[in-house]
């Protein structure tokens, strides 16, 4: 175990509780996409005025297709009727990136952080999120990596986590990542994820060949994020 990972574990136990700023983790269960948007807006405002500490929202969405600012509407492959039949809602998101799918079995993480130097770097923030997820996956026994030029987290040749973020004035982050844990991957057939046509989407369950409790994944992800950003879990 690396010194940093050890520090994080220690941090989780509260051993160095005063040394690091807090990261509050809020597990919200299943939340409608639109509600989560409103909540994030409020948290961003609150974080900017320092009314709350850095906060990580962990949740699941019901079936939803969301469009980032770079989304090509042609990458939504099913029409309104079919979406209604499948119980999928369509949303404008306010994050960067293309089209993605959210649904049950997917761990969605929305870190609302006030970035400080030297982390005030949009690319670095993306790489930090990827790094945290890669660390978390490693802890769960899945080897994942970055793909140069393609934001997200990838196993051998498949995408396991999608990333799309927003940085509001004052370097306050919102939106974040969607990690497929036990996602029904057939729903990705309704979109072209992030405009990438030829690289399949995968899930943790598929990579491991067994089910993983969501709570275990949440633990790992929260821990890895805290470590990566030098925060203590609170």
């Amino acid at each position, binding site marked *: 175990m690396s010194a940093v990972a050890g520090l994080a574990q220690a941090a989780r136990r509260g051993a160095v509780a005063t040394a690091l700023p807090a990261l509050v983790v809020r597990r919200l269960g299943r939340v409608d996409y639109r509600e989560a948007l409103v909540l994030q*807006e409020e948290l961003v*405002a609150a974080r*900017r*005025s320092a009314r709350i500490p850095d906060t990580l929202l962990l949740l699941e969405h019901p079936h939803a297709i969301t*469009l*980032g*600012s*770079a*989304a090509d*509407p042609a990458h*939504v492959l099913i*029409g*309104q009727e079919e979406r209604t039949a499948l119980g999928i809602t*369509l*949303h*404008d998101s*306010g*994050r*960067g*990136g293309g089209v993605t799918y959210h649904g049950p079995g997917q761990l969605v993480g929305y870190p609302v952080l*006030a970035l400080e130097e030297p982390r*005030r*770097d*949009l*690319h*670095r*923030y*993306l790489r930090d999120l990827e790094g945290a997820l890669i660390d978390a996956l490693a802890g769960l026994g899945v080897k994942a990596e970055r*793909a*140069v*030029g*393609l*934001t997200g987290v990838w196993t051998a*040749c498949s995408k396991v986590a999608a*990333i*799309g*973020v*927003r*940085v*509001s*004035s*004052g*370097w306050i982050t919102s939106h974040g990542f969607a990690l497929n844990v036990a996602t029904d991957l057939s729903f990705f057939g309704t979109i072209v994820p992030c405009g*990438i*046509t*030829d*690289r399949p989407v995968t899930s943790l369950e598929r990579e491991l060949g067994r089910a993983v409790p969501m709570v275990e994944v949440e633990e790992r992800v929260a821990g890895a994020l805290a470590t990566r950003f030098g925060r203590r879990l609170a």
Partner: protein
Amino acid sequence: MARIEVPMPQMGESIAEGTVLKWLKAVGQPVERDEPILEISTDKVDAEIPAPASGTLVAIEVQEGETVEVGTIVAYIDPEAPPSSNGGAPAGEAEEAAPVAAKAVANGKRAVPEPAETEAPVDQGPAQPVAATAPTPVVRRIAEEHGVDLAQVEGKGHAGRVTKQDILAYIESGKAAEAAAERTAPTPSPPVAALAPLAPEPAKAAPPAPSDFWKAFYGQVQHPEFPMCEGDRVEPMDKIRRLTAEHMVVARRIAAHVHSFIEIDFTAIDQVRKENKKAWEEQGARVSYTAFVAWAVARVLREFPHLNGTISGENIIYRESVNVGIAVDLDPGLIVPVVRDTDHLSLLGVGMKIIDLAERARSRQLAPEEIQGTTFTITNPGVLGTVVGMPIIPKGTSAILGTGAIEKRVVVIDDPVTGTDEMVIRKRALFSLGHDHRLVDGADSARFLSRLKQVLEEFPADA
């Protein structure tokens, strides 16, 4: 009056450019320091950009949907101007501006002001600035693609803004098709007079302004992605590569490419070179084969205005100037600097200009105007040994000449004295002319090449 520049900020070490997603403030509106005034997008991140100073937003230089390099001025703030008194102050007054943020870009990496304490105006209901209710580029693009009049779409976003969801729902509802059908009746199109001053009666069917048209076309260039394998190296395209990739796809898509070939004998040119070599050397000049070709091409082009023109909408533009562009290999990369008014230069002048441009191209010191305005292009794959090439015609022009390798060949000629067939060894090269068959027919191309061959093979001593 000092105006403060608002540059596209460097929001990360490896970030070279950003796309303006949305202006949160309109020209003439007051802005507070650190208040978000626009949203940008880069890769998978959307970010708000705060004002570097308080004042009035007096000019917006980069429109929504445009992508510019870091450091490019996107707007000007006047710290003294009263709100909306004089919206667009003349650009000429920018010199003595106090470029607070721009200086930050020059000095270090960051031009991002301190954290904003104010709320983004997009969150506030009634006091909505005009720009914030304007549709995003994505919405506008969808509207354009589907021929939807945005005014017909009910906006359910903040302050009645039409969101992507609204327009997608509208299109799905089928109303778009109905409305579009009603509108197909004659609509007045914008004037195109400036487009083709030489055309006797410019045709009236050129709906979008040229820049919008090309923007739309470039927007459609999508390079398919391919799977990677272990050990593969992947890196993002640099700017020249990306522009070249887009340009080639678009140019290839638009022009009706045809290629014709001719073989040129360099005996006369070698003679001129030999005779002038000493004189040129004394002037410190070199005159390459390409210079000979460019000089001859420029003269012949005067006789063939089609090849120095282009189809533009429903019109043909015949260019007044003959500006020969010379493709320069940057290894890696390609750039085409232009020899302006090539037909007004002497052979020596063309030669010196080409050497100057090529050297500065390789050291990346060309000014923007030195790579614009080409009316005809010469590319020289022969310099690397290629016998002949079939180059793509750059957009906005109708022809490109490819010069193959100059090699000694055995050829059969009429003996000038005896009139019998004779085998001789001559320096020759294959030239290819790529021409846009929309404007240049095969016979035109043949006549041009024959005339060019004649000039090159009987090269005047006093060029």
